[in-house]
């Protein structure tokens, strides 16, 4: 009798990949992180005018897209409003409330109402943090429940939003050198968060999760960090038009790398821990 290398499927003791959340759930983390990060970076850029309002609207639309993705995963979408019922303990309910509060704050900021931008900034950060804590509260999945996943998702969301901000730089023209430096610093922080996360989960996750994370991690380090850092550095020495193009490409690859890591984390690294027995039953005569 032979046993499959991944154990006994859904009825065995070995870890297996969860199937409850798929790319639709990942879409929530990707859209929400990008949207929240874009709102944060747009507010910090302190731009004004039509481009400013458009970027904020795009951020809000991305948040909405993420929530739309997760609504496709609901078994009973017509009851979706029940999601607001338990903000006392559920990070999913808190995420929903943060998204609802984010709408008027962003609209008021886009309309130029004084003081609104601080609320939009804070709520966008709260929303991204809620998403990160949401994943970490999933105790059934070792790769998700590690506390180190929180800074990883938060900084990845900020990077993805910043990346989109730089993609749109030729249009809004607010990509200052100081923002580029902040972007570079965030890239370094994200990769440090990734390395810390990867080190902390090394002893707790299934081999299948390790393989998936290592593949995504290599891509994050090379294409998601080293390449955009080099592009941002090169932009410092280039003519303004070329510099805008270089930072735009840097932003795009950094954002796509973050999205890929999230997709991998949700859909391919989501192994449970199986059922390890601390003791086996003692039967018969003891020796």
């Amino acid at each position: 009798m032979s046993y499959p290398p991944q154990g006994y499927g859904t009825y065995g003791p070995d870890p297996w990949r969860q199937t409850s959340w798929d790319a639709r759930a990942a879409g929530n983390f990707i859209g929400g992180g990008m949207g929240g990060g874009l709102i944060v970076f747009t507010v910090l850029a302190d731009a004004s005018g039509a481009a400013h309002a458009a970027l904020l609207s795009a951020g809000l639309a991305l948040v909405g897209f993420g929530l739309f993705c997760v609504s496709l995963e609901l078994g009973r979408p017509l009851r979706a409003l029940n999601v607001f019922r338990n903000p006392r303990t559920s990070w999913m309910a808190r995420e929903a409330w943060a998204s609802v509060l984010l709408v008027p704050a962003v609209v008021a900021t886009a309309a130029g109402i004084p003081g609104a931008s601080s609320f939009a900034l804070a709520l966008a950060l709260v929303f991204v943090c809620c998403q990160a804590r949401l994943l970490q509260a999933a105790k059934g999945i070792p790769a998700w429940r590690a506390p180190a996943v929180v800074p990883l998702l938060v900084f990845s969301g900020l990077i993805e939003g910043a990346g989109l901000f730089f993609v749109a730089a030729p249009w809004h023209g607010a990509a200052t050198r100081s923002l580029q430096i902040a972007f570079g610093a965030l890239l370094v922080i994200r990769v440090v968060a990734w390395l810390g996360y990867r080190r902390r989960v090394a002893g707790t996750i299934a081999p299948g999760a390790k393989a998936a994370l290592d593949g995504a991690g290599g891509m994050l380090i090379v294409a998601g960090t080293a390449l955009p850092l080099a592009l941002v550095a090169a932009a410092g020495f280039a003519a303004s038009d070329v510099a805008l193009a270089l930072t735009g490409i840097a932003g795009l690859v950094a954002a796509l790398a973050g999205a890929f890591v999230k997709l991998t984390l949700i859909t391919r690294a989501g192994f449970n821990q199986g059922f390890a027995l601390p003791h086996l039953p003692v039967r018969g005569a003891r020796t």
Partner: protein
Amino acid sequence: MTRWAMVADLRRCVGCQTCTASCRHANATPPGVQWRRVLDVEQGEYPNVHRAFVPVGCQHCDDPPCMDVCPTTATRKRADGIVTIDYDLCIGCAYCAVACPYQARYKTTRPVNAYGREMENERKRRDDSKRAVATKCTFCVDRVDAGLATGLVPGVDPEATPACVNACITQTLAFGDLDDPASNVSRLIADNRHFRLHEELGTGPGFYYLWDAADKPAAE
């Protein structure tokens, strides 16, 4: 107070899956949904190989992660320790399914029949309220409550006892009140070495596994 709990004596289980079948019969769960299932665990290398059958399902935790994450309050814990789901509130987000370290939750999005087309018994017991929402073992809470209402003792009187416990052919499974020191489960736990699954997660499972007699020298 009362704390309903279950005990599985791993020395007794033969892996016959009668508990699984009885649970499916009692709760009319569709194919693929096993609120009570039995793991077949083989551990070690030849010639020192051990095999164990482990009944698993919802552990009715003291601090259930599925309840904390539920955004709708559909998942609740009763004062007697039984974790329940309100199928009318659940939105089917499956957050509880990924939060449960025991893989005890199921969500079926479309009708599944044993033989493709719907059979007569499936039509009669069809319950659309359980479709596209999270479902799990309830410790047969309806039987427990109905039994208590008529003065029966869950874990002692079969009419008030979960179906899997009643059906177990080897008396592997026992059900009772953990807060009553004279109950069957309290005595079993006191008289035997036991563990709970994934105890390091701090969930406080209400499901105990016996693996050796307490008055014998440790074998492992």
